[in-house]
């Protein structure tokens, strides 16, 4: 043994991988709302409207069902639930590819704020606003940022007066946001600032995204006023925790995407007849769908494990998240690709919603760290060192 690393076997925890009754009830509520207001056909029609997101749907989801505050403790104005419940919401959102800023506002922005000192009013107040769905918040980092530290230097600088200068590209839901949480290099090292999206010196340029259901924007700060939320290790940890939670819960969204694609493909191929038989009776197609089913069932175990590790604040969370992302991201992409292919010609059309899922799955694969980045992280975490 030349490596001093310890095999992690003995420390693997004992996660709860099932769904609780409360989680099932939450799922039923979210699913009913989405079936009514956010089914793929409605989503498709809404995309032509150029709106940043479906405000009516978001309002119902965030405030009537109360999903926006799931991760916020009750004393701070939230529901005091955990990542396990948020994961169930994301499974359903994945199944409908609804254009709502749940992952960005209720997971990433909320978790970043929770990592700051929320005894302070300038942290507690925005947190309560996000929890109640009164404001949409985003963490101003490129959507591709992986947990475990940014790959390059932070692109925004802050001066001693809290004036921010710099540019952050490809921020998810930037145009929808009222509150921007901006990691910046300040006079005392890394820092996290809160900036009003409407403040002077803030510009949001929308870009045409690959995934139409999760809009992107480039943010430019030109001396914009930022309120300091945290500095140093605290700021770094708050951002990293947000990225870890985001990546871990994104696995549940990917599970939902894959599940929809498989279900629709099975339904279509069982009905569609060619050569005198339902195409779903041909072994060449059956085997592909059966193999995909096994991957989806496995993705569920991986996603539940990540959600449970985040919910219980397990020391295993970084491993659980890396495993879930490395596994679930490609499963969602494969499911969406199979969905397009096994639908035949109709899978290539704009009318059929398959393309929405393909675009979401592919851009989710890049989001919050590609599978390769997560495997790289895992190499360090479980002692499989590079050559």
């Amino acid at each position: 043994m030349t490596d001093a690393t310890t095999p992690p076997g003995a420390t693997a925890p004992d996660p709860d991988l099932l769904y609780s009754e409360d989680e099932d009830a939450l799922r039923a509520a979210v699913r009913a709302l989405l079936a009514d207001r956010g089914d793929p056909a409605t989503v498709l029609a809404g995309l032509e409207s150029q709106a940043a997101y479906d405000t009516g749907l978001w309002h119902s989801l965030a405030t009537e069902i109360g999903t926006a505050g799931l991760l916020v403790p009750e004393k701070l104005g939230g529901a005091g639930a955990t990542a396990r419940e948020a994961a169930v919401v994301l499974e359903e959102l994945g199944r409908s590819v609804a254009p709502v800023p749940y992952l960005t506002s209720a997971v990433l922005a909320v978790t970043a704020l929770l990592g700051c000192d929320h005894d302070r009013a300038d942290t507690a107040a925005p947190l309560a606003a996000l929890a109640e769905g009164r404001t949409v918040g985003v963490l101003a980092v490129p959507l591709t940022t992986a947990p475990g530290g940014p790959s390059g230097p932070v692109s925004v600088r802050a001066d001693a007066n809290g004036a921010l200068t710099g540019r952050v590209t490809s921020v998810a839901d930037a145009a929808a946001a009222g509150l921007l949480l901006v990691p910046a290099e300040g006079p005392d090292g890394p820092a996290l600032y809160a900036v009003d999206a409407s403040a002077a010196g803030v510009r949001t340029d929308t870009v045409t995204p690959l995934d139409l259901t999760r809009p992107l924007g480039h943010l430019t700060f030109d001396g914009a006023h930022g309120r300091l939320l945290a500095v140093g290790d605290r700021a770094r940890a708050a951002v990293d925790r947000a990225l870890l939670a985001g990546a871990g819960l994104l696995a549940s969204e990917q599970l939902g995407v894959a599940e929809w694609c498989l279900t629709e493909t099975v339904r279509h191929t069982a009905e569609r007849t060619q050569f005198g038989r339902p195409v779903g009776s041909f072994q060449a197609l059956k085997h592909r769908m059966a193999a995909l089913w096994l991957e989806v069932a496995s993705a569920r175990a991986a996603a539940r494990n990540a959600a449970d590790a985040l919910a219980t604040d397990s020391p295993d969370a970084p491993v659980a998240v890396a495993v879930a992302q490395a596994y679930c991201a490609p499963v969602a992409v494969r499911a969406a690709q199979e969905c397009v292919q096994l639908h035949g010609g109709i899978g290539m059309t704009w009318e059929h919603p398959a393309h929405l899922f393909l675009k979401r799955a592919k851009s989710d694969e890049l989001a919050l760290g590609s599978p390769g980045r997560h495997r790289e992280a895992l190499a360090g975490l479980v002692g499989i060192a590079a050559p």
Partner: protein
Amino acid sequence: MTDADDLRRRTAELLAAHPPASTDRLEFLRARFDAGLAWVHFPEGLGGLDAPRALQAVVDAELEDAGAPDNDPGRIGIGLGMAAPTILRFGTDEQKQRLLRPLWTGEEVWCQLFSEPGAGSDLAALATRAVRDGDTWIVDGQKVWTSSAHLARWAILIARTDPEVPKHRGISYFVCDMTDPGVEVRPLRQITGEAEFNEVFLTGVRIPDTQRLGAVGEGWKVAQTTLMNERVAIGGAPIPREGGMIGIAAADWRARPELRTHDLHQRLLKLWVEAEVARLTGERLRQQLTMGQPGPEGSGMKLAFARLAQEISGWEVEFLAEDGLTYDDWTMRRPDRVDFTGREAGYRYLRAKGNSIEGGTSEVLLNIVAERVLGLPPEPRTDKDVAWKDLPR
């Protein structure tokens, strides 16, 4: 209803009456069976207490802590996993009393005479004949892939008793005495060089009608119970992270830095992730079973296991470079249990090739998942309503 505390008390009583340190192994196992602590979900008098199946773990943990001997389940897996539940469900009282105790203690080993050279995954196509002669059946035919046949005292056997009806309907199920005249066991040497399996030739073997399980012609239904229990057995105990083959590969990687390449690193990380996810999927299935909500994941686990075992063992041979070119020993051996990780990389690589064939090929399992789990339309069947004797062979 027997609860966990009750089982702990009974276990403590067993240990007090038969201290493991000073009790003969077999004597202890017999006493454990008689105390109803062998398989607690079995009926009283047959090694159990009619307790919930999940409570077996309570007994096992207490006994392990006390250093009690186990019944070496790896060696008698076919008896425990397949024969016992079938006998329990379809056997007569007399059969249960005679057969279950020595089966559980391992005094009598069981094998399974199902597969045939002409009927692999299409098990119901079997041709071994059983012809009635008064109170006995005369059996002629050939079976294959029979593990433990050379050690077995008993076999569960399916044979054709009516060739005039479609293939699933003319089969009956028997308990065959492997010491009877006409039973000949020949080792079947495999790709690994060893003979883990056997061919079994049955020539005029006389089986008393009292050794039939289930009605004449209903053997396929009985066999379904056997095969379903084979799959349930996979639920089993939780395995630790890096348990099994991936643990060996990871240990190799840590021990031999001079052999590392970037390509092998990438592939190992991918396999590590897949092995961890397979472990979690098995763990999730186990949790569902404990909650009394068995999920369909079980039907897919064998597929994942087979693919992973083949890929990881193939990776390992490649990683070992020059050492991967060598093999430990081609001597013909007759192992009395399957050990996937005990020997070296070349053996693992070759043995894993069987994982996607034995117990139903991966291709047939994919069909089963597609039809039974996803509800996709079945393959067209040309043999469904045709008498077995008229089927092309």
